């Protein structure tokens, strides 16, 4: 690949990385994505069809007018329009005839796209695109500047890549240092709600639970919250239920929860809390997208809720609604709170008759086959507990799990039980609750999450872990029943993919913790720790309990960068010469030809066919001591020839031991 082709390819790939930084947000229009990918492919193939860019510039102008018209009529977000404009500008320049000006324009427009990506996305993938962009853009721009500097021979690419590699390392380090030290005194004038990438935020919580909905949520891999549990369960895959919302009333199609929320409070006690408790520090991420709080089954206390904005953190109040739900008083993208759950299956709190009758209520137009089915499935079971367990087992074994549903049907429950005999967790939970009620056992449906993957000492819960199950009141106890087949309760991956996902999530958490949510408070804490001069962290325990090693990390990175810079400098200064010397020394040592004390001086090289070795040593000395440096690639050539010559030469016999000097004869 020629030097020009290489630098143009690097430039175009840098633009591609910058575009990807925007595209991962999922907010870039599909047509813009397709257009840019096509342009990138054409550009990488070396085609530049827009020799005269006037016509395409006019087309670009027209497209920009259309874009901003769409903004005016509120069909397109302003930032998305700006990002699309930058991508189109970059594409137009990429396909134009290469020139220094074009290269500069592509690079500057790519920088705009990176900034657009920073606004649109907060995902860890942005970091990857950012890193790729920095590497590719620095290399491409450096090569372009050298190539356009003037007449004369161009240097070998690797000669330029060395200082540019140093430049990349320093640029990344500098970006980190600036990032840490730049005062976070935001004016917050035009703060944009961002951060939710890879589609809109959702957890599936709603005021009602309607049967017949699609099961797309189940395949959504986004992490919606993370939790630190005390005492730590210690398992990699948590087999636990996270309660979100309980539904009592079923009308045949939809579940709902009657009742009005109580007054706001800083701390909410649900039911009758009984120790021992399991404490949870829960961090609702931007992908969560709901006001409903979750806690491990059986939740007892919610409190210490805080909403986190980029520049400040405030305490927030909670709205309880009996034991059915605890909600935030207002929506926020990032919330942390503490929850305590009862570890024991203590007796259920007493409920009044109204409540009890609500949990026994059946839909008015219930299919008559359902009570008959309930009786048939529970034949032989004695007592409520046995009946409940038998019904649970029957549904688990006789019905299949599927996310492919036919859409709206008149009676989704009958359709599930008698026709399709396949459904997802909401169908299973609804069926079990109705069958239990048909056998006069109070039951209600609970929605929340099931599972949790361990990462960095915490448990991550994904949108796909959303789940529904049943709580039944049996013999004065709350019995949790889950009719969904166990292998379909959560969306936890397994094997290598699961391991990779967990590592990725761990990185994502660190990224969110230390970069996306870095704040003025963190800066103040770093400054105070720096003043104290202590290496150990004594940070007051935060809501997430995270430990931040940013200072040590930055100092370590600085040290590594300095060492790399020094090594690169040394290599650039005399790397070839030293390498040639070392190679010759090694080759000669193998054959026992080195001179006294292992030096090249005095090496045994008398054979005629060892002339290349002698030439190599001579050039090494000239380059090292005679100020006649090696040319590009000369060192490698000399070493190769010397190696070939030595391979064909026989190994010399070891020198004979010195003969003992004759003793002087007496005169």
């Amino acid at each position, binding site marked *: 690949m020629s030097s020009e082709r290489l630098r143009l390819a690097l430039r175009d790939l840098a633009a591609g990385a910058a575009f990807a930084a925007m595209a991962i947000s999922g907010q870039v229009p599909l047509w813009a994505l397709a257009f840019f990918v096509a342009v990138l492919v054409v550009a990488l193939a070396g085609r530049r069809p827009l020799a005269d860019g006037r016509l395409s510039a006019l087309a670009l102008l027209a497209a920009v007018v259309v874009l901003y018209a769409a903004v005016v009529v509120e069909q397109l977000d302003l930032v998305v329009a700006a990002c699309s404009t930058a991508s189109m500008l970059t594409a137009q320049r990429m396909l134009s005839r290469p020139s220094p000006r074009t290269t500069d324009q592509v690079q500057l427009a790519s920088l*705009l796209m990176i900034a657009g990506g920073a606004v649109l996305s907060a995902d860890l993938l942005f970091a990857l695109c950012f890193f790729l962009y920095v590497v590719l853009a620095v290399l491409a721009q*450096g090569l372009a500047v050298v190539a356009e500097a003037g007449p*004369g*021979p161009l240097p070998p690419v690797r000669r330029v890549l060395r200082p540019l590699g140093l430049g990349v390392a320093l640029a990344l380090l*500098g970006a980190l240092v600036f990032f840490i030290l730049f005062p976070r005194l935001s004016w917050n004038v035009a*703060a944009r709600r961002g951060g939710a990438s890879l589609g809109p935020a959702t957890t599936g919580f709603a005021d009602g639970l309607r049967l017949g909905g699609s099961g797309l949520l189940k395949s959504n891999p986004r992490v919606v919250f993370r939790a630190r549990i005390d005492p730590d369960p210690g398992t990699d895959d948590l087999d636990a239920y996270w309660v979100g919302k309980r539904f009592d009333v079923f009308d045949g199609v939809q579940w709902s929860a009657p009742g009005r929320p109580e007054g706001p409070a800083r701390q909410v006690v649900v039911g009758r809390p009984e120790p021992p408790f399991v404490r949870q520090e829960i961090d609702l991420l931007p992908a969560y997208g709901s006001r409903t709080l979750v806690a491990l089954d059986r939740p007892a206390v919610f409190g210490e809720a805080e909403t986190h904005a980029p520049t400040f953190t405030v305490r927030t109040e909670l709205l309880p609604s009996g034991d059915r739900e605890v909600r935030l008083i207002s929506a926020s993208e990032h919330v942390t709170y503490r929850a305590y759950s009862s570890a024991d299956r203590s007796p259920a709190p007493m409920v009044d008759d109204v409540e009890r009758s609500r949990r026994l209520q059946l839909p008015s137009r219930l299919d008559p086959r359902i009570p008959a089915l309930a009786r048939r499935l529970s034949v032989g079971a004695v007592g409520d507990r046995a009946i409940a367990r038998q019904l649970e087992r029957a549904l688990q074994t006789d019905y299949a799990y599927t996310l492919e549903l036919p859409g709206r049907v008149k009676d989704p429950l009958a359709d599930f039980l008698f026709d399709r005999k396949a459904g997802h967790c909401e169908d299973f939970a609804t069926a079990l609750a109705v069958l239990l009620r048909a056998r006069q056992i109070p039951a209600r449906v609970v929605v929340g999450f099931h599972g949790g993957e361990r990462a960095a000492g915490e448990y991550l819960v994904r949108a796909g872990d959303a789940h529904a199950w049943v709580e039944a009141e049996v013999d004065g106890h709350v019995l949790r029943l889950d009719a969904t087949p166990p292998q379909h309760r959560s969306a936890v991956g397994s094997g290598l993919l699961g391991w990779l996902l967990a590592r990725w999530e761990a990185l994502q958490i660190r990224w969110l913790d230390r970069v996306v949510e870095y704040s003025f408070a963190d800066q103040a804490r770093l400054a105070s720790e720096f003043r104290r001069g202590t290496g150990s962290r004594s940070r007051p325990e935060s809501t997430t309990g995270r430990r931040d090693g940013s200072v040590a990390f930055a100092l370590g990175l600085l040290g590594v960068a300095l060492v790399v810079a020094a090594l690169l400098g040394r290599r650039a200064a005399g790397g070839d010469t030293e390498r040639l010397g070392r190679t010759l020394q090694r080759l000669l040592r193998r054959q026992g030809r080195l001179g006294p004390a292992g030096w090249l001086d005095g090496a045994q090289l008398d054979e005629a066919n060892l002339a290349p070795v002698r030439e190599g040593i001579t050039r090494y000395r000239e380059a090292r001591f005679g100020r006649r440096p090696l040319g590009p690639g000369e060192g490698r050539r000399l070493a190769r020839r010397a190696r070939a010559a030595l391979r064909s030469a026989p190994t010399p016999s070891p020198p004979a031991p010195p003969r003992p000097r004759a003793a002087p004869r007496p005169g």
Partner: protein
Amino acid sequence: MTSRREWLRRTWRRLWRPPRRLRTTAAGRTYLVLTFGVGLGALNTGNNLLYLVVGLQLSLIVVSGILSERCVRRLRVRRLLPVLPRARTPFHLGWGLRLEKGHAFALAVSEVHPVLGTAVGRLAWLPPDEEVVVRAVASAPRRGPLALETIRVSTTFPFGLFVKSRDIDLGGELLVLPGRVACHPEPPSPASGLGLEQRSLRGLDGGGDLAQLRELREGEDARRIHWRKSAQLGTLLRVERDAQPQPRIMLQLDDRAAPEALDGRCEELAARAEILLARGAEVGLESTGGLRLAPASGALQSQVLLRALARAGYPGEPA
């Protein structure tokens, strides 16, 4: 006293001169505007990723400074001046560049001089410990000595956003000879103000053996006529000998004229001197300012005369 004052002046200037000069390119200006805009956006929104981007942009400015400094810091330069530069005629300025350690890229070399500063030599790559000569085409509008004090080495490496320059003090002088003009065939009249030629007839007899006889041309010295042969053939014949006599001409220069007029006279005299010397004459120069160059012939005399004419009228300069 003058040299001490000059030394003080140079020291004072060096003290107040920044060690490096930094100029933004067009792309650099756009980059700075972008950096400012992204920084403003970060402050407005509090978006940490925008802070990361602006951190990268600021960091790239610093990296640009570090890498460009590596290119120009240890650079050694020597000046390669043309021998006979003529006014208004393009000539080559040269600089020998050497870097003991490391590589330098995207270099531009020029003189810090109002006249010669526009000539820029460019070099894409300077390998370590190897002298590379860079040349640039320059032109001077007038004759005279040009004092050279400083060489400016610049680089746009690594990103082309800024031009970093290092000024290297290196004294020197470029003497620009009078420009070439068309020469009048006849000597200038005394009233023309272009100086006088004083011809010496001494030594015109020539010497050596008789080489040939030829017809006497109009204006030639009648004393060279071979009367006997002329009488025999009925036409005037001139004797030519092996060693022809060389005319000895003293060019006269009135160097009290205004600079522009003096330039014209010097160019005229330079042209005449070159023609006369090419014909084999011995040419000298005498000026009203007291300059006197004895007549001589040959290429060396041509250079001596041209240099003297180049310096004519410049006070304090050696003749």
